[in-house]
């Protein structure tokens, strides 16, 4: 019909009919608001101290790209096998699915990804050591490993000084095998080493290695952790049969079996206390945990407390030790006082207050004290600024001594968790990079965080959270073998499918599906393209986006 035109009567067809599509009509000019794709932060990634990009690696899992998912995690955390097992997963507490039905089991997916790549040595090495500066890291715990790894990826040569015979710090010596098998730790430390990180074991700074050795380095990161148990400050603390939790676990992790009696109590409410108590069970003994506040104030990971209970650990709340008494140098009794909860303290938890004349005594033969740990900073030669028992650092992890940085449990603002140590290592690496002049701190505007009410829950039918496969209790208490198992591929897929993927586009096509103006299409790379010549700005795409990855913005008015 090319011969026709609606110009003159001669050129017009005998009846009125169309000669071309409406595509020529720029109906986009009707628009006063413009939809855009704008990714936002999910609350989980904000909640993750290591800053793992959870929606992105979930998407890779969803597509069966397990190696890529692993690489995605490795950008922020070189120890996913470790954190997938032992992290207290604050991410899950932030999960927008929580208020809707049940939060996503993020840590299980992390563990799944790590375990899927257990035999995979193919890390995304960023390049050769193109930077001439050398950096020393003191301590191969999670903070030290994280920092060294990130620096290596940035192109630095890094040496870690580790006083113990094997690297890993508290990961190796503080966490029992049934929670974190050593092969997992070894594998991931191996991965870090494969990035060119040199770990010098049996090298104690201030011991067999002089502090001055460090002068050859351009920067130092101090991450010695908190390895000394805090004292109970009660009489009888030095009696035989009284251990610190750290000490007890150290022995176990060195393959030795500390002697425990038949009446074992553990003092404290943190993870060390729970680890110690569950370990005692595995040594074939009964155990009671004594804690001065109530269950809800316990700093240990709730699942761990549940597990401990399931396995037969007894709990006694609102009690504090007053005195240990012994018989021939061996502990035989513990005197306790009952407590009540008073006003909240600076941690926000209600402070335990002793109840007068409530003392009572229990017969004991083993007491494991796990009321907190402090760093051993005796090796530090300079008068480093300290705050309490820890090295003072500013927000850039700088100690104030040029080139000396610190982080993790030995520095200020610790929280005693693996993932926070990893975060400290990662962030300190950025500060060190910047200190060495390689990297200008690029502070992009913080992304908005998706709120639960912004999720279009219509698209998400209610579904149960994945059930973590676990060894039977009967068998688990008789062995130090790992209790929890890795979820299956199918379970992992189901769980990532539950994820709202808040703020991160999953190319689910909902925007495209509901566009009345046929103005959204996909380019060759599979990315959405909005045809602004025709988009009328109705906003359905933005409103329907299940995960708030789009936004409507005002058009600038153009007066023609």
């Amino acid at each position: 019909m090319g011969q026709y035109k609606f110009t003159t009567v001669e050129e017009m067809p005998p009846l009125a009919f169309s000669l071309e599509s409406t595509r020529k009509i720029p109906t986009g000019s009707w628009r006063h608001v413009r939809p855009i794709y704008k990714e936002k932060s999910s609350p989980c990634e904000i909640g993750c101290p290591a800053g793992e990009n959870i929606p992105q690696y979930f998407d890779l899992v969803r597509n069966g790209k397990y190696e890529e998912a692993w690489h995605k995690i490795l950008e922020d955390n070189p120890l996913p096998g470790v954190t997938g097992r032992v992290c207290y997963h604050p991410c899950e507490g932030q999960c927008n699915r929580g208020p809707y039905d049940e939060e996503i089991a993020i840590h299980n997916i992390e563990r799944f990804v790590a375990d899927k790549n257990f035999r995979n040595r193919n890390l995304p090495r960023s390049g050769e050591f193109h930077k001439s500066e050398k950096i020393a890291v003191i301590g191969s715990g999670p903070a030290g490993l994280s920092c060294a790894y990130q620096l290596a990826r940035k192109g630095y040569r890094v040496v870690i000084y580790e006083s113990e015979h094997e690297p890993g710090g508290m990961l190796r010596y503080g966490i029992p095998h049934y929670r974190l098998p050593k092969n997992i730790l070894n594998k991931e430390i191996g991965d870090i080493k494969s990035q060119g990180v040199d770990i010098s074991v049996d090298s104690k700074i201030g011991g067999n290695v002089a502090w001055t050795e460090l002068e050859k380095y351009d920067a130092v990161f101090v991450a010695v952790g908190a390895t000394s148990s805090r004292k109970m400050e009660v009489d009888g603390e030095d009696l035989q049969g009284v251990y610190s939790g750290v000490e007890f676990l150290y022995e176990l992790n060195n393959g030795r079996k500390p002697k425990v009696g038949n009446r074992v109590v553990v003092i404290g409410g943190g993870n060390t206390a729970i680890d110690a108590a569950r370990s005692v069970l595995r040594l074939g003994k009964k155990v009671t945990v004594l804690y001065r506040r109530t269950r809800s104030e316990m700093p240990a990971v709730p699942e761990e407390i549940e597990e401990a209970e399931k396995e037969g650990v007894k709990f006694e709340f609102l009690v504090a030790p007053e005195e240990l008494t012994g018989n021939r140098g061996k502990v035989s009794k513990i005197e306790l006082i009952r407590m009540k909860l008073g006003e909240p303290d600076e941690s926000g938890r209600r402070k335990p207050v002793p109840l007068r004349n409530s003392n009572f005594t229990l017969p004991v033969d083993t007491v494991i004290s796990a009321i907190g740990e402090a760093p051993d900073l005796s090796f530090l030669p300079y008068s480093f600024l300290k705050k309490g028992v820890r090295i003072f650092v500013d927000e850039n992890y700088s100690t104030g001594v040029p080139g000396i940085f610190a982080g993790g449990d030995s520095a200020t603002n610790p929280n005693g968790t693996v993932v926070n140590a990893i975060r400290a290592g990662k962030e300190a690496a950025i500060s060190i990079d910047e200190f060495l002049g390689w990297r200008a701190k690029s502070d992009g505007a913080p992304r908005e965080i998706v709120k639960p009410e912004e999720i279009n829950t219509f698209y998400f039918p209610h579904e149960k959270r994945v059930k973590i496969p676990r060894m039977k209790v009967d068998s688990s208490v008789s062995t130090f073998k790992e209790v929890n198992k890795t979820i299956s591929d199918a379970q992992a897929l189901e769980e990532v499918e539950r994820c709202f993927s808040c703020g991160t586009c999953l190319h689910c096509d909902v925007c495209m599906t509901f566009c009345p103006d046929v103005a959204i299409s996909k380019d060759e790379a599979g990315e959405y393209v909005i045809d602004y010549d025709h988009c009328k700005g109705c906003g359905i795409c933005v409103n329907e986006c299940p995960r708030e990855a789009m936004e409507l913005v005002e058009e600038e008015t153009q007066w023609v």
Partner: protein
Amino acid sequence: MGMNDTNDLRKKNGLMHPSVDKVLVIEGTHAASHAVRLAKVQVIAAYPITPQTGVVEKLSEIVSHRELNAKFIKVESEHSAMACCIGASISGARAFTATSSQGLALMHELLHWAAGSRLPIVMVNVNRAMAPPWSIYVDHNDSLSQRDTGWIQFYAESNQEVLDTVLQAYKIAETVSLPIMINLDAFVLSHTSEPVAIPKQEVVDEFLPERKALFKVDPAEPHAFGALIGPEAYMEMRYKLFQAMEDAREVIRRVDSEYSEKFGRSYGGLVEEYCMEDAEIVLMTSATAVSTARIAVDELRSLGFPVGLMKVRAFRPFPVDEIRELAQRVHKIGVMDRNISFGATGMIYQETKAVLYNASVRPKLFGFIAGLGGRDITPETIKDIYSYLLNHDAPESETIWVGLKSGQEVRPEGGNASSAAFGQNENV
């Protein structure tokens, strides 16, 4: 009438032409049905209305006997009948419907739609008076009320002409892309049996090959038909339709002579003249009244009166050239309308007058209204009219009602009066 006379008549009427398959004595409605069969119409959609029913009944029989491979959609209204035909026609098929009077009026909106869509639909309309009061008898107000819809209109004089015109109509319609309405008088043709030559199918096929639609709804070449159009092009669209109607004049003439060559019958194109040699006074009329007028003319001619007759076969397009040419030859023209446009005059008269206004020669023009609602038009009626024409130099009024029953003479007070009447009270 002797045997030879009969044969002459048969010859004259083309009944003995080699193209003839058989001669059937049939009603006008059935003549239409047979034409539809011969035209190999593919889609028929119709709703029954007296006196059209013969058309659809016969077609139902033809289709169910598989004498015609067509879809016959027995719709729930004339409106839907026309819509179905429009649909069928825009799909590229040959479509047919038949109606009458009220049914045609109900179609009105879609008559515009068919013409505006330039669809070669052919429709038989049995002319019946409009209600109220109810009447099932002939007059032409139903079809003439549709004159501005863009349809070509033919008025048939005989059952044979009905058949022949339907066949011609498809050829004309498909040439100029306009719909055509063939009108026949209620009962006088629709329910009156006459011998009708049924042509051989193969000759019809030669004359009227399969339709090749210029435009259709074709998924291979998608267009939207009839969408919104702005003032910048609507007028041109109307000009195109106007022009097609103009072009139709020549096509009608050409197709009629082509038909004559193939089938031995001709109707003169837009008009047909009778006894026009040396005629000084001529009567123009249409449809079956023409046959009656032929008898009156024969009689008056035998008495020596210089009278002639012009049959208006096509009302749209209006035979402008033919009438202007006629005006050159005669002194007086009478127009007998079997219709009335209230507030004006008979419609053929009105249009004839309009045609002559700019003509170089303008004979005296007389407008007669006769035969409304099935009132008989007899040879006497026609002779009365000729008599009036012979006896008056000019019409006494713009409309002269013939045969009106009145206690008084309906006579104009002066020349400007709008109506006069005679016939009932007066013997001319």
